[in-house]
């Protein structure tokens, strides 16, 4: 059991949860995630660790309410418990000093980017961050990124904050400015990571993506999170979640993400009906 210490609403459907997990906080490295289960009938879902406070023994999760379990999770109050919490899982990000590194975050997917950006910044890199979202309410952690980035570019689909357009537009501009980009780290919706990878492939910029595959156990025993990376089948939970964006088969992943669409919709509707 893990107790929720604080819940902060960041925007309409996005919440920040601070959870007591001293052992996980002590061991966590950027790029890693947890699996949680809310109650006896609950499913196991993966969530990336957005931040931690080792002294307080807490980790932060940033959650967008999209389906039954995430709606239920963000409805919890400080003092309530999460039944099962396992982690930190997955391989940590390889952080090294390279020069200029571009951090690209899309929507709520931006949350896991934060500890990674912090890691690269502390390793002495120049950080350019591009954050994108459908509108300004869905931009996650802009102040936090502003504090650690040498440059911060905000993009919204509707132009409600920053520039109107996609993160790839901002990235293309940087490339056109002949900035020597040593690495791109992109985390967000699959479709965004796919287009970032397609862009950087043309310019041979090494690109790391963090995949948000379907998962059950998160420990490598089922292969539900498998993905084609180059010629190999990899398990996101054990070999990832980060992979070379130029080798990932995004099209297969995009289809796979729809496997349980009907069941997910039914489950959410039932939940929303039962809890006004």
């Amino acid at each position, binding site marked *: 059991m893990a107790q929720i210490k604080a819940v902060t609403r960041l925007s309409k459907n996005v919440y920040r949860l601070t959870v007591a997990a001293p052992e996980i906080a002590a061991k966590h490295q950027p790029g890693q995630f947890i699996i949680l289960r809310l109650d006896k009938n609950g499913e196991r879902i993966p969530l990336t660790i957005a931040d931690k406070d080792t002294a307080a023994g807490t980790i932060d999760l940033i959650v967008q309410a999209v389906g039954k379990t995430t709606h239920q999770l963000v409805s919890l109050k400080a003092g309530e418990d999460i039944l099962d919490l396992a982690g930190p899982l997955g391989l940590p990000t390889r952080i090294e000093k390279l020069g200029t590194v571009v951090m690209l975050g899309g929507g709520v997917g931006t949350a896991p980017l934060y500890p990674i950006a912090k890691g690269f910044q502390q390793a002495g890199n120049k950080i350019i961050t591009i954050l994108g979202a459908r509108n300004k309410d869905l931009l996650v952690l802009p102040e936090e990124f502003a504090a650690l980035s040498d440059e911060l570019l905000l993009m919204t689909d509707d132009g409600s904050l920053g520039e109107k357009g996609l993160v790839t537009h901002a990235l293309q501009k940087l490339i056109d400015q002949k900035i020597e980009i040593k690495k791109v780290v992109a985390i967000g919706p699959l479709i965004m990571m796919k287009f970032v990878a397609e862009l950087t492939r043309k310019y041979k910029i090494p690109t790391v993506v963090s995949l948000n595959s379907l998962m059950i156990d998160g420990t490598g*025993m089922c292969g539900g999170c498998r993905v084609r990376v180059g010629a190999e089948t990899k398990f996101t939970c054990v070999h990832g979640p980060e992979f070379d964006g130029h080798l990932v088969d995004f099209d297969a992943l995009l289809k796979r993400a729809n496997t349980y669409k009907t069941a997910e919709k039914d489950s959410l509707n039932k939940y929303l009906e039962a809890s006004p």
Partner: protein
Amino acid sequence: MAEKTVRQKKPEQTPQTRRTNFLEVAGNYSPEQARLEAGRCLQCKNPVCVSGCPVGVKIPQFIQQIKDGALARAYEIIRADNYLPAVCGRVCPQETQCEGRCVLGKKGEPVAVGNLERFAADWAALPHNAATPCRDAACSVSTGAADAAPQSAAKIAVVGSGPSGLTCAAELNAAGFDVTVFEALHELGGVLAYGIPEFRLPKEIVRREIKSLSAAGVRFETNAVIGKIQTIADLLQNFAAVYIASGAGFPSFMNIAGEDLNGVYSANEYLTRLNLMKAYQPGADTPILKGQNVAVIGGGNVALDAARSALRLGAAQVYLIYRRSRAEMPARREEILHAEEEGLRFLFLHNPLRYLGDEKGFVQKALLQKMTLGEPDASGRRRPVPELGSEYELAVDTVIVAVGTQANPIIKDTTPDLPTDKRGYIIIDENGRTAKKGVWAGGDIASGAATVILAMGAGKRAARSIASTLTI
């Protein structure tokens, strides 16, 4: 006179009924049946059945007690060698172990050792029977009633709560050590919890057996992925010895085209969704695809468990696709018969070449190839050889791949000084000792995927080796 009695059959749900539920297929012997079956045992002076049991249960002795009606004593005799008798009586492949050696089997049917073991274990668990190891409401796993070990006892860490870890933990606890079992999942039992379905092994029985270990003083920590939350090196800071029994749960795929299509599962995923996450129950949040035409690839117990689960989820047709013939199937004989009665369609000497999907990425067809049996290979089994030009398509909407598992890399990758073989299995000596000081290993993570009882035997050997090395 005794041998003239026929082997007693357990009561069973009819195939028509059991196809519609996940309840246990086979019921228990009545006391009268158990007494009659026990009476068939010849009480051999040199019992070969015992040599067929990987943990050496004193078979004639416990059977004699059942015959005499001393059920508490029968249970005690079994428990001295086997900490999970209600499990083993149900899932051991007795035909290749104890019952396979029974002298009665030479001319007729062997004594039903497994059924009798189960009978004694189930009897002992009934609330009014004194031999029950845990009738106390306070002895729940979550509260970890862990006061049995003396303060000064050496601390031992066991990684994994499957059959091997549980046996090692139980043995060391009984020897007076202070044992903590670390489990990665939220539920204890390893393959007993996530792999073997309710209709073969009710989870209530697994919980019961684990509760009795908890009551005896073994500590359990769930949601603890060793290699992540603590490495083996971390554990050695706080524990005098570590036993790694993390299993071989990493599923293999065949690496053929279309294995990434929606509706293609590893058997581990399919069974985990059902058994651990209860996806078959209304109200469970974990979804599962309920296919109408299901293909299961493989011929072992895992393949049969997946196939019979798919039938129970309401599939119209379930095909078991196996590249060899019935004679080579490694599955338990009783389960093959049960599956056949339930309407499973066997496609022997068949192998999938690829899967084809629709535009949305859901599997639609399997391209199959027929095989013939050639010369025996290194394993002694006749090698399946493709029959050229025999390819044909089978309409399927779910595929479950049950072609085996491999070693999980998490512990190996985070313990660089722990020698493993080229397939990632931990290298041990005959006592379960690894080359790393203070570390033992056993079960599937050392041997590769095998049976529950072999994993238990390994746990027992390692426990004895650990106990003889450490002073309490």
